């Protein structure tokens, strides 16, 4: 019976694992390209386990950006998880404290979405189901990072095979993924203009903090809208 639940979770997570796998390999390859060792790349996937923020981390690291900004950016990109753990609290009250720690560690976008769906429909979200779902995504994510990192180390010039455009395009996809948020267009426009200007007048690591700060300050100053928004999720992001 318990095994049954585990395999149900595995089956439910399987298609998400397939969708996430190319991103795992991409992270591994780009991490190497940004100066990480194979160990660093896998270490980050094992400990952070949040694809978009891992990509942001390696990119900022390559720009020699200050450590606090790297950590803050990772925190910011993953900030939506606060909404997930708040919402999930309703369905995992029966987990033991240790099980809760494991559950929150594995809390990615798809993990949240499927658990919420299951809980909402009145089914019990059992720890063993949750673990099955989490493991079929977590373990392959590490393996794909390793494969990507090994593959990345064999590549001589990343430009020759077009790797250098993949990160900016990936980030552009993430930016588009947030487009239903309040003030999205003014924030993006201001951060874009200011970061381009800062790149020209100040120089490389600073364009990130200056451009980001401009967008964030603008968002804090713009008039607030009243209706509470739904958490915006990134498609198939681990």
């Amino acid at each position, binding site marked *: 019976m318990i095994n049954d639940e585990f395999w149900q979770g595995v089956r439910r997570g399987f298609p998400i694992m397939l969708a996430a796998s190319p991103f795992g390999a991409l992270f591994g390859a780009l991490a190497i390209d940004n100066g990480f060792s194979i160990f660093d790349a896998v270490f980050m996937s094992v400990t952070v386990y949040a694809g978009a923020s891992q990509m942001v981390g390696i990119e900022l690291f390559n720009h020699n950006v200050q450590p606090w900004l790297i950590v803050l950016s990772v925190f910011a990109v993953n900030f939506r998880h606060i909404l997930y753990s708040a919402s999930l609290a309703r369905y995992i009250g029966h987990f033991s404290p240790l099980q809760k720690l494991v559950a929150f560690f594995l809390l990615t976008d798809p993990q949240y979405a499927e658990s919420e769906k299951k809980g909402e429909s009145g089914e019990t979200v059992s720890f063993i189901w949750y673990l099955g779902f989490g493991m079929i995504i977590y373990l392959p994510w590490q393996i794909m990072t390793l494969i990507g990192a090994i593959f990345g180390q064999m590549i001589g010039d990343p430009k020759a095979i077009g790797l250098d455009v993949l990160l900016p395009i990936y980030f552009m996809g993430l930016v588009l993924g947030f487009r239903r948020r309040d003030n999205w267009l003014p924030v993006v426009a201001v951060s874009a203009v200011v970061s381009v200007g800062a790149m020209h007048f100040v120089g490389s690591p600073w364009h990130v903090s200056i451009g980001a700060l*401009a967008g964030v300050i603008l968002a804090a100053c713009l008039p607030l809208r009243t209706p509470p928004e739904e958490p915006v999720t990134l498609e198939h992001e681990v």
Partner: protein
Amino acid sequence: MGSSDHMHLVYIILAAAVATFITRIGGYVMMTQMKRIPPRMEAALNAVPAAVLTTLVAPAFVYGGWDVTTSMAVAFLVGLRFNSLWMLLVGWLVVMALRHFGGF
């Protein structure tokens, strides 16, 4: 990289892991302890991902050279309709085509 640089990187990764775990447990802790985040603070926090990510996109678009700019523009159009895997694939095909046949 030297070994002290390497430890430096390991510490940054660990700090990023802790920051991520805080977001993953934070909502649960807040549900049991705290009240609400002030609305302007929430608006600012909501804007952080788009603001940071934009600073990683816009300079590459402007200063990356015509091959990068063109492939990013095409990927942007793809991204308005399709998911990021298609953006990456089409953008990559465009930049490879430009580099191999377009003289870049």
